[in-house]
């Protein structure tokens, strides 16, 4: 093969070609409608719902999606429903705040002190496993009829996830952070405020989400 017969290799052209390929590839991968997947899921659910409603053909057993939507729209304009909704929201709000007020300090104490964990863990674990329904009659006897029992229930189901995830959050903090803080002359209060609280926040947030979810489920 003489030198003239060799295929000419042009580095610039190759680079250009590769760059264009990369751009094309990226364009292909780019998600044009980020909400599309969500809409597809919703569409599939509504479709199955509609098919089921057509199968039963009975508005009491299985109303169609459309009639449900109309019902929701009417309810949202009804003053009485809105009034009831505000009551529910108030109960959830109070219950949630109470469960934070009980759960967070309990979690911090149990996470921080091994002694407190040993004393309180059996109590928490036995009370936690009593079925919700068993509390209903007792709570009505204790708190009467009205907001009382409901707030009690919401608080009750919120306290445990918050306590347990706070304990886990405190335990997950690397011992190096405590060592570092103590090496820098930090006081007990500062270790709590600057290390324990921010360090356990990811765990606490999980607990708060669980507590809110549980709260919604136990509104009566």
């Amino acid at each position, binding site marked *: 093969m003489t030198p003239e017969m060799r*295929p000419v*290799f042009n*580095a610039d052209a*190759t*680079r250009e070609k*590769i760059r264009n390929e990369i751009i094309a590839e990226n364009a292909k991968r780019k998600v044009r409608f980020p909400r599309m997947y969500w809409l597809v899921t919703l569409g599939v659910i509504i479709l199955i719902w509609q098919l089921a409603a057509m199968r039963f053909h009975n508005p009491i057993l299985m109303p169609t999606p459309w009639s449900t939507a109309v019902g929701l729209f009417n309810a949202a304009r009804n003053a009485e429903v809105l009034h009831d909704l505000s009551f529910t929201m108030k109960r959830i709000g109070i219950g949630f705040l109470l469960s934070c007020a009980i759960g967070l300090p309990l979690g911090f104490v149990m996470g921080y002190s091994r002694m407190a964990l040993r004393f309180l863990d059996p109590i928490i674990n036995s009370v936690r496993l009593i079925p919700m329904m068993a509390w209903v009659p007792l709570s009505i006897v204790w708190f009467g009829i009205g907001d009382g029992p409901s707030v009690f229930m919401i608080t009750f189901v919120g306290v445990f996830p918050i306590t347990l995830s706070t304990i886990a959050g405190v335990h997950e903090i*690397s011992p*190096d*952070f405590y*060592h*570092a*803080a*103590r*090496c*820098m*002359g*930090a*006081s007990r209060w*500062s270790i709590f405020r*600057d*290390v324990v609280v*921010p*360090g356990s*926040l990811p765990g606490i947030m999980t607990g708060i989400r669980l507590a809110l979810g549980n709260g919604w489920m136990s509104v009566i």
Partner: protein
Amino acid sequence: MQRLFVENICKVYRNKKNDGHLVLKDISFGVKTGEFVSLLGPSGCGKTTLLRLIAGFIQPTSGRVLVDGCQVSKPGPDRSFVFQTYGLFPWMTIKDNILYPMRQQKMPEVEHRKRLQDLLALANLEGKEDLYPHQLSGGMQQRIGVIRALSCRPKMLLMDEPLGAVDMQMRNKLQREMEQIFMNDITTVVMVTHDVDEAVFMSDRVLVMSEHAGQIVSDIQIPLQRPRNRSDKTYREKVSQLTALLQNVYPWPKDEFAKNDDNLPPEIETNNPSYYCHSV
């Protein structure tokens, strides 16, 4: 003048299933004020345990640690610690991380600003104070770890394999920078390392520890001027002396690193276009 004195330290780890694992056996040594001492030894020789005892994170089974004649019982601001994993608080900015020890030790507010700027200049990190630790590279984070530890002018600095987690080029660069930092701000330092070159480069004195029942087997002075020069004859002699010592305490198969020329990759044909394509 003696700053640190470690007196007949023994450390035994015990649990229900074993009857005591002896990690440190009757260790004694002193460190003079302003001296940089390295604890060099193979993994598992108890050098980190020894450093944590000096810091007060753990308590010795017997013996005691004295700093300026006072017995150590818990961690304190007179002994700053630099962690292998940096130990910076990820929820604070760089500025708050460095100011944290100053605030805890009630340094006057007016001094904060100046000290912060001085320290950032020392570590060559001006303008980074509002970032969070995860936004910096490992090398930068470790420099922050060092200046945070120095911020309140501690009596001594304890460093646990401070450059263990960075690659070799960064390691050499940071060693230079740390050398600069300690030349400007003379501090008593005890550093744990398993790297012979690092020990010779950084320290005034190297204590070599043996693998079993942690004991100090030699105490080597490094009488070299700073900044240090790796190609210096004495430097290289010290490195080979320490390497030989380490090989004795931790004998590994001698031929493990022998070169095998047959296994070298074939030469790359540079006029092959596909080679260029992949390297673009």
